[in-house]
């Protein structure tokens, strides 16, 4: 009964490849996020969807494309992977309008680009 789950946990791939990371939440939340955590542990928001609509789109290369097929799922597709894409990617969710803006994070996907 994991609240926010991500697959895969680890992803090792070659430069230039295309890969996807999947996220699912069973909390009934309507807003989901993708964050990137770099090697220095700095966590930065990338995208957010509310009810399948893109509401936050930070300055991210357009090689990154999020997709939300429904409120419970948010996937991240990355084209033409580069060395600098190596990081841990976290999915998070929250219920819009909830007090205190609590976000629930998944366990992360560690992406290594060789």
């Amino acid at each position, binding site marked *: 009964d994991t609240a926010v789950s991500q697959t895969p946990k680890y992803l090792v791939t070659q430069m230039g490849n295309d890969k996807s990371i999947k996220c699912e939440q069973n909390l009934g939340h309507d*807003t989901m996020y993708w964050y990137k955590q770099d090697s220095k*542990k*700095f*966590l*930065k928001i990338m995208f*957010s969807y509310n009810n399948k609509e893109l509401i*936050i789109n930070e300055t991210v290369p357009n090689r990154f494309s999020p997709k939300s097929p429904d409120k419970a799922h948010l996937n991240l597709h990355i084209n033409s992977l580069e060395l600098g894409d190596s990081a841990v990617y976290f999915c998070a969710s929250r219920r*819009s309008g909830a007090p*205190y*803006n609590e976000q629930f994070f998944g366990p992360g996907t560690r992406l290594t680009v060789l």
Partner: protein
Amino acid sequence: TQLLEQSPQFLSIQEGENLTVYCNSSSVFSSLQWYRQEPGEGPVLLVTVVTGGEVKKLKRLTFQFGDARKDSSLHITAAQPGDTGLYLCAGVKGAGGTSYGKLTFGQGTILTVHP
């Protein structure tokens, strides 16, 4: 430009010691959160402070929001090895729907408590 400056970046102390982590900004936040992250896991929310001057306690952890809502601190009393982890502050600017819950994180503090 880093909106939230968190310090120190690293903290290595002995069990039983007290410590304080600071989170400072020149910007006003509508609320500020503290998260704790353990290796291989995602951040977990510890507390949210919303009112200037607010103090919240969670067992041995005391959180304070500055009067002007630009800074916050986390104080741990009598640290234990189980407190080891990455502590992150995160701010929200704007209220309710205007912010879409966008969190701006500090750089994090890696705390190691030695037995």
